[in-house]
């Protein structure tokens, strides 16, 4: 009965569950509801992903109004793939959160935490599914508002300033996107993405459209923390509760990368962005600086959450690098990395959260000697860390491999070398932590304390992600075919143009 409505369900299920959480009132009921709804959304998203692989794009007219008059839900393989990752991570994080926030968040706020988490999920699913440029802005703001709340739930008072900085930057970004969408509407008279794409193709080199693109790109870059607009991210991820860091680091910025892909490839078209405006050079330069500057910053931090936060900014650099290579393989590598990075960063932040739960600190000193005391947690951290570095047989290897392939395909030897060099820096910052965990004696922070392994409810989701890391590193058929189909679809217009030339 609901088969044709599946595309809209991942949005409205969490949206309706959020107020229900408030009405339920009790935090463990809220937790149960949130987890179930999130899991249901995950199942639906996987189903949608499989459908898109078979049938192509799914379109759903909200309110029965045909686009461009009504709002369209439009899910292609790219969106379905990231949607599955987001809902999946959200489910695992919710399972994990029960034990994790028990220590980090005040008990009276647990229900609010789950409500905000569900609202954030609603926003992210909405962004991924919508086919309307303004609707995207609305969902972006739902997820952002929920995110500010989630970050401010941290136990350290610095989470407040971090959340405020995030709020100001995020709102500036959203307003820039609003300006850009306004300019698009002004010139085309429509807000539907496909319709916009058709109409933009008519004007090449219009100054209003160019400015609109610039504003949208800057706005999205703030949201996805592209260097040098990333300053809000490290404090926010450091001081947010661990469950929140795990969720946001693996989903929120990645969804923003998706928004950028959507605006560049679907709405404006690669031709306009990369040939008329030569954005590829700018993006490429920023991506490379991000990889090196932030990987380097990650090597000198003592707070492990900060290390991972800077590492996230660097990894976003890889995704943008994939986009800026302007090829189907490059885009595929970028999309693949969005998916894989969600798996690894989720596992890493979860492991750090477990350490915080048991030792009360996330300083690198607290990790000393943990290899013996928390073997399962640290094993998970190690494998996910290897995935970040890009060791073969992990998911991280696959995406880096295709990134290098895409660079080599265009004879960009230097870029291929730089990607490998960036991995070297990742070895240093992950290696420092592993060294502390396995080869150092417990420091004064943990000495004398009896440190137990993390509880089951935290270990299970962590290990699910770790196993996914290995699985998608070995059996790449599903991720590769999805990313490949998605990239083909997105770059269709580009290849047509190339063929015509």
């Amino acid at each position, binding site marked *: 009965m609901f088969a044709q409505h599946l595309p809209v369900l991942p949005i409205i299920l969490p949206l309706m569950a959020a107020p229900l959480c408030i009405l339920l009132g009790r935090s463990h009921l809220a937790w149960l509801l949130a987890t179930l709804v999130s899991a249901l959304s995950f199942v639906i998203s996987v189903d949608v992903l499989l459908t898109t692989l078979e049938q192509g794009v799914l379109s759903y007219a909200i309110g029965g109004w045909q686009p461009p008059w009504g709002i369209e839900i439009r899910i292609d393989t790219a969106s379905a793939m990231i949607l599955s990752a987001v809902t999946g991570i959200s489910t695992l994080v919710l399972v994990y959160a029960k034990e994790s926030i028990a220590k980090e968040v005040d008990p009276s706020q647990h229900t609010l935490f789950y409500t905000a988490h569900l609202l954030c999920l609603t926003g992210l699913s909405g962004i991924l599914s919508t086919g309307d440029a303004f609707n995207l802005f609305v969902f972006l703001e739902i997820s952002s508002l929920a995110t500010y709340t989630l970050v401010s739930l941290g136990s350290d008072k610095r989470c407040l300033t971090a959340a405020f900085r995030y709020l100001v930057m995020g709102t500036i970004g959203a307003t820039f996107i609003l300006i850009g969408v306004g300019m698009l509407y*002004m010139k085309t008279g429509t807000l539907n993405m496909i319709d916009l794409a058709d109409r933009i193709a008519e004007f090449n080199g219009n100054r209003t459209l160019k400015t609109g693109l610039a504003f949208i790109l800057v706005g999205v870059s703030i949201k996805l923390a592209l260097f040098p607009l990333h300053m809000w991210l490290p404090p926010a991820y450091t001081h947010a509760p661990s469950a929140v860091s795990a969720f946001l680091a693996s989903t929120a910025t990645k969804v923003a990368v998706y928004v950028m892909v959507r605006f560049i490839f679907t709405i404006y078209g690669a031709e306009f962005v990369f040939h008329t405006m030569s954005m590829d050079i700018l993006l490429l330069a920023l991506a490379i600086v991000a990889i090196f500057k932030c990987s380097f910053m990650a090597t000198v931090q003592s707070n492990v959450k900060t290390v991972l936060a800077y590492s996230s900014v660097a990894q976003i650099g890889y995704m943008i690098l994939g986009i800026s290579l302007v090829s189907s393989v490059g885009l595929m590598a970028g999309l693949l990395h969005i998916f894989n990075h969600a798996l690894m960063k989720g596992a890493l932040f979860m492991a750090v959260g477990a350490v915080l739960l048991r030792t009360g600190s996330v300083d690198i000193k607290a990790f000393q000697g943990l290899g013996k005391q928390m073997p399962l947690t640290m094993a998970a951290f190690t494998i996910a860390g290897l995935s970040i570095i890009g060791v073969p047989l992990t998911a991280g290897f696959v995406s880096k491999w295709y990134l290098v392939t895409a660079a080599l395909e265009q004879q960009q030897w230097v870029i291929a070398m730089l990607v490998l060099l960036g991995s070297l820096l990742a070895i240093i910052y992950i290696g420092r932590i592993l060294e502390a965990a396995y080869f150092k004696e417990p420091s004064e922070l943990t000495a004398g304390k009896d440190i137990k392994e993390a509880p089951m409810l935290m270990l299970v989701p962590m290990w699910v992600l770790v196993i996914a890391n290995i699985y998608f590193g070995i059996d790449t058929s599903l991720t590769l075919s999805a990313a490949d189909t998605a990239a083909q679809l997105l770059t269709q217009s580009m290849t047509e143009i190339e063929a015509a030339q």
Partner: protein
Amino acid sequence: MAEIIDLVLLGMLAITAFNIIFIKDLFTVVMLFGIYSFLSALIFVNLDAVDVAFTEAAVGAGISTVLMLGTLALTGRKEKASSHKTILPLLVVCVTGAALIYGTLDMPLFGDPDNPAHQHVAPRYIEDSPQEIGIPNMVTSVLASYRAFDTLGETAVVFAAAIGVLSLLGLPKRDRATIQSGLKSHLVLRVVAKMIIPLIVLFALYVQFHGDYGPGGGFQAGVIAAAALILYALVFGLPMATHVVPPRVLKALAALGVLIYAGTGVVSLFLSANFLDYSVLAEDPVAGQHIGIIAIELGVGITVFAAMLCIFYAFAGQTERKNIQ
């Protein structure tokens, strides 16, 4: 004539904004912001956007200003003079402004009926919505039916804001009736407030249910109803207000509104139509649309009323707390 009014208002806005940059007294800054908001509402009226003007006046000049004043009561009204960096921000602003001016060069002519914005999607809303939806206010038609998903998102945003403020500030406890508060000595104020609060509530209901025919709708009605209770809380004290509308009820109401809205959409799903397709809610599609719009406007109104009042309670509870300490 309209152009001259427009120009004068824009000039006044520019002066207001310019003053806000330099004035250090934050109380004045907030008041100027209220003025800015009212002036922009006037511009919106002048540019035919009556619904927007209504909202801007109620929200920008009303709720936002009240919240800002509430914050100032807690944080102090003087901005400290600082040798803050000003060169870099100025540079950023100049670059952004230059980019925008560059973008305006190819913009369509202001007010020209042949602009692309008025050609493609909009004519359907103007020409067909009175027949398809059956109500004269096109803004309500588009808001509540054609783009109902945006409005659902908007309701969720308001709900998210209430959740955020609650998690940051918490709600005041109800059993504080012993504390002396409110403006006890202002007899005139109390009498007049008693007279006009029912009128404001009545007006809110009018705006809620007349939104199909004139400017207004759930959002404006919710804000106005919240304003009535905010006035009550200001004059008679927060404990009295929390006695009339307990915070817990508000929290539940805010959630309920979102559920009403989304639930209307789900009802259409069960009647085997697309999400938020109201045509199936009654035998006649136009009547169905009307029922759907009334239902979702009710949801919006309830959520907005409850969320705004919740947010006000949270801020006022903080001020009260500060006074006790």
